[in-house]
């Protein structure tokens, strides 16, 4: 563990109001010290959110420029700011800027010193903030000033929010010199649904449904993160069989999404045969999921306390059949990718993400791993049952679209093998435990970090003594990936943007909340 991180958690309290990670109630000086550690690369940023009168900074002991033997452990640093102002972290650590703008939009608190005071999720359309306790007055934003770009013969291409394909809405402002992109500026927030507001006061069941719809493609991972946070807060023990079933579902979700992404990336390089083949395999996964668990995307199947659907003997056979088919077909597809030089002509060297940027932004998932970051929440910090499973993390160094395709292929292979292990080691028994009731009148907080197909999802929840949700915050991996898309497109041609974008496949809904 890094010395700075150790010093940080040395001052924190453990197991009192937050589980399972330590928490530090900081004063302004402690807050600035925590921000300084981020600036110096002593640890990484795992999340940053507000609630009425307080800001929370989740820090993670993860590979950075200076961290030694990172454990993946988390520490939550909280600063009370009753006057609605707090010192900016973004001022010294740019990856925090958008999160800080969001805190300002949603809670009306001000980050003193934030270099970018523009609103982020707030487009000036929210008439009132019913259901968002302690929120700022609505309708702050008006005309959104994009960053100025100066130079000869530059032109701008505004794209979105409604895009040409069947994809989510967001706005991209390209500034180009001829065919070459000089700058991309993103504007997001179009699908902000006010999920944090809806969570406040929700029953556990309703909150779990909401968590499963933060980003529909990661519904299992989000439901798992929510369940783990609730179970940590209430110290509920999940039955062993449910732990394995959760991993089975999570890996099915990963396989389905990676197959979809591989097909979509190749399709954007006009190689549609790969989309056709991957589409068939993806459909097989979803049909197997529907047969085994009763929903193609496995929505609402992971719930606090366990899982809502058990795997029958017939279901087991379905999964085994699916594994056999994907195992048989995948090498052909990987070979097809490998042998098609016209396709690699588009992907190799395109959209290069520098390893130092990936590290600085704490970029996880396929994108981080394709740029040399060997991080995976299943390993660091790790959670059951992955701590009992042998697997290594596929990593590539090239950082281009090609590397991101290859890491996805490798991860599908790993997930197939994880499912085989899970089937072999899954014990019989119950699949759902009751959430432990409160033993007092104090709220209970839980924090979880779960690896979705896109990367690490952080979820924090505070439960009231009656076990309803007081507040809940979910941080999508895309928060630390979207800003990097702006960086990788620089110097590429406009026509390669779809390739870069698909190879990232960031979530709009997960980001906009």
């Amino acid at each position, binding site marked *: 563990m890094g010395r700075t991180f150790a010093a940080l958690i040395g001052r924190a309290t453990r197991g009192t109001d937050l589980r399972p990670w330590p928490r530090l109630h900081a004063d302004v000086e402690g807050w600035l010290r925590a921000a300084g550690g981020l600036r110096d690369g002593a640890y990484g940023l795992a999340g940053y959110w507000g609630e009425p009168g307080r800001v929370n900074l989740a820090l993670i002991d993860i590979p950075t420029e200076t961290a030694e033997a990172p454990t993946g452990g988390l520490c939550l640093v909280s600063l009370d700011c009753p006057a609605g102002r707090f010192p900016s972290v973004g001022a010294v650590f740019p990856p925090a800027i958008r999160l800080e703008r969001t805190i300002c939009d949603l809670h009306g608190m001000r980050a003193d010193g934030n270099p970018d005071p523009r609103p982020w*999720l707030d*487009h000036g*359309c*929210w*008439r*009132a*903030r*019913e*259901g*968002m306790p302690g*929120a700022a007055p*609505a309708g702050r934003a008006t005309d959104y000033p994009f960053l100025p770009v100066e130079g000869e013969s530059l032109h701008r291409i505004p794209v979105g*929010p*409604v895009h*040409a*394909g*069947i*994809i*989510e*809405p967001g706005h991209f402002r390209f500034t180009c010199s001829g065919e070459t992109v000089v700058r991309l500026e993103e504007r997001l*927030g*179009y*699908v*902000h*649904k*006010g*999920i944090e*507001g*809806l969570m406040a006061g929700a029953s556990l069941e*309703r909150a779990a*449904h*909401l968590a499963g*719809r*933060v*980003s*529909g*493609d990661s*519904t299992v991972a989000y439901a798992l993160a929510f369940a783990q946070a609730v179970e940590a807060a209430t110290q509920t023990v999940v039955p062993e069989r449910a732990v394995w079933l959760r991993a089975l579902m999570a890996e099915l979700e990963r396989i389905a999404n990676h197959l*979809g992404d591989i097909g979509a990336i190749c399709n954007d390089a006009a190689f549609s045969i790969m989309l*056709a083949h991957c*589409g*068939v395999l*993806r*459909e097989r996964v*979803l049909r197997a999921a*529907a047969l085994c668990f009763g929903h*193609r*995307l496995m*929505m609402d199947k992971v719930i606090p306390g366990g899982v809502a659907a058990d795997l029958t003997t017939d279901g087991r056979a379905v999964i085994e059949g699916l594994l056999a088919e994907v195992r048989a077909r995948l090498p052909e597809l990987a070979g097809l990718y490998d042998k098609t030089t016209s396709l690699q002509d588009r992907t190799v060297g395109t959209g290069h993400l520098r390893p130092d940027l990936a590290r600085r932004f704490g970029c996880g998932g396929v994108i981080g791993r394709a740029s040399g970051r060997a991080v995976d929440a299943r390993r660091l910090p790790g959670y059951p049952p992955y701590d009992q499973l042998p697997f290594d993390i596929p990593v590539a160094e090239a950082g281009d679209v090609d590397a991101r395709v290859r890491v996805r292929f490798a991860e599908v292979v790993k997930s197939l093998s994880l499912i085989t292990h899970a089937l072999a080691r899954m014990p019989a028994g119950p699949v759902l435990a009751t959430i432990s009731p409160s033993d007092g009148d104090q709220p209970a907080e839980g924090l979880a970090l779960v690896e979705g197909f896109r990367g690490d999802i952080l979820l924090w929840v505070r439960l009231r003594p009656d076990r309803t949700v007081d507040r809940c915050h979910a941080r999508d991996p895309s928060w630390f990936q979207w800003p990097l898309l702006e960086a990788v497109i620089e110097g590429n041609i406009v026509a390669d943007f779809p390739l870069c974008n698909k190879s990232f496949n960031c*979530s*709009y*809904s997960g980001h906009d909340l």
Partner: protein
Amino acid sequence: MRIIRHLRTLLDAPLTEAAPPAADAALAELAGQVDAAARQRLGRSLSIREVDAGSCNGCELEIHALNNAFYDIERFGIRFVASPRHADVLLVTGPVTRNMREALERTYVATPSPKWVVAVGDCAVDGGLFAGSYAVEGGVAAVIPVDLHIRGCPPTPTQLLAGLLALLGSSR
């Protein structure tokens, strides 16, 4: 090996499945709402512009699946187009966030008549799980007129196909 593989491809039955019957509920909803004369003009093809107005992206996944070999939606003359100016149908998902309201209205205006709006997913009906939020309008019909609702969270590709075939069938 290669020859065997090619032979297998020739002998294998196609993956594409028989069409589901047009959804009864959809036919009933359409009978009351869609003008017969306009339906005749539509003929046997539909060009669809998909608009995500705040969905969780679950519906998008299943709409995408309509293009895979199992459902192969293009065999029915239904295809997805890039511009609302080329579209007969707007397929709208999500509870309609306030931040997407203007974009949805402008997409609707940009679509030439005759045009139909199909609201996809439970939250597109009335806001669903997101109803009551400060940030959503609470369903597509709160913003633009809707001709057909396809429920589900998300609706399966078969449910989507049954709904769209009802639109095509009723417009014949």
